[in-house]
């Protein structure tokens, strides 16, 4: 099992470094450009939500993004110590309705679920949220 991580302040300025970090590891794992883009976007959405919703834009807070790889699975764990939040509870939008009603927002969790093979949530009593995003390699 390979493990690498980045620990950042909760700021949208950091999204680009997080995407680069995750993309490099995904490339090495063996994913092609399209899969790498999906993974980077899913992780961006997860971090953006933490910055906005879990931490309410408090830049003193921290986010840890950990990449774990074995032979078949590429897993990104995203940890924060903010509001408890389980993405499984968010209903996916009906996109036809969404677009025809000119809605805005509410696509982040849906994207995460659509882009990845698995989205799990874990709350540890030490007040830490963990979202785990997994994608499998189909060689």
């Amino acid at each position: 099992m390979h493990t690498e991580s980045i620990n950042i302040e909760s700021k949208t300025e950091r999204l680009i470094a997080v995407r680069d970090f995750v993309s490099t590891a995904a490339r090495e794992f063996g994913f092609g450009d399209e899969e790498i883009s999906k993974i980077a976007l899913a992780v961006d959405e997860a971090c953006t939500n933490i910055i906005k919703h879990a931490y309410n834009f408090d830049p003193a807070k921290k986010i840890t993004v950990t990449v774990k790889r074995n032979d078949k699975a590429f897993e990104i764990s995203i940890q924060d110590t903010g509001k408890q939040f389980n993405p499984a509870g968010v209903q996916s939008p009906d996109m036809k309705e969404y677009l025809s009603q000119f809605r805005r927002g509410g696509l982040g969790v849906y994207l995460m679920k659509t882009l990845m093979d698995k989205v799990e949530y874990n709350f540890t009593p030490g007040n830490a949220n963990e979202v785990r995003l997994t994608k499998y390699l189909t060689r």
Partner: protein
Amino acid sequence: MSEFKIGVREAEGINVLELKGYLDAHTAPKLEEAFSSLLSLKQFRIVVNCKDLSYISSAGLGVFMAYIEDVRQNKGDIKLTNMSPKVYNVFDLLGFPLLYEIFKDEREAVTKFKDSK
């Protein structure tokens, strides 16, 4: 390291926004400003050239959603052009081509605006 830039051109009442770089939650406010300043000048015929747009997240998509209704109510439109496959995939995944006209080339979008005068 300036991760996102917008260029604005105007010709015959059609405004072309050229997006360059990474459009995410950090940079989306810049695009929002650009749209809101066009709207405050009553410019509603807008082409967004995405040739150099390398990345878009849902924060970027949200900006397009924020202005499309207003623009259309004013008989204008936001037409998107020159997307890389990577950026198009994100629009496509969410069904955005149902709501937005997306053209291969900027000229096609401009022509469409002119024909509908």
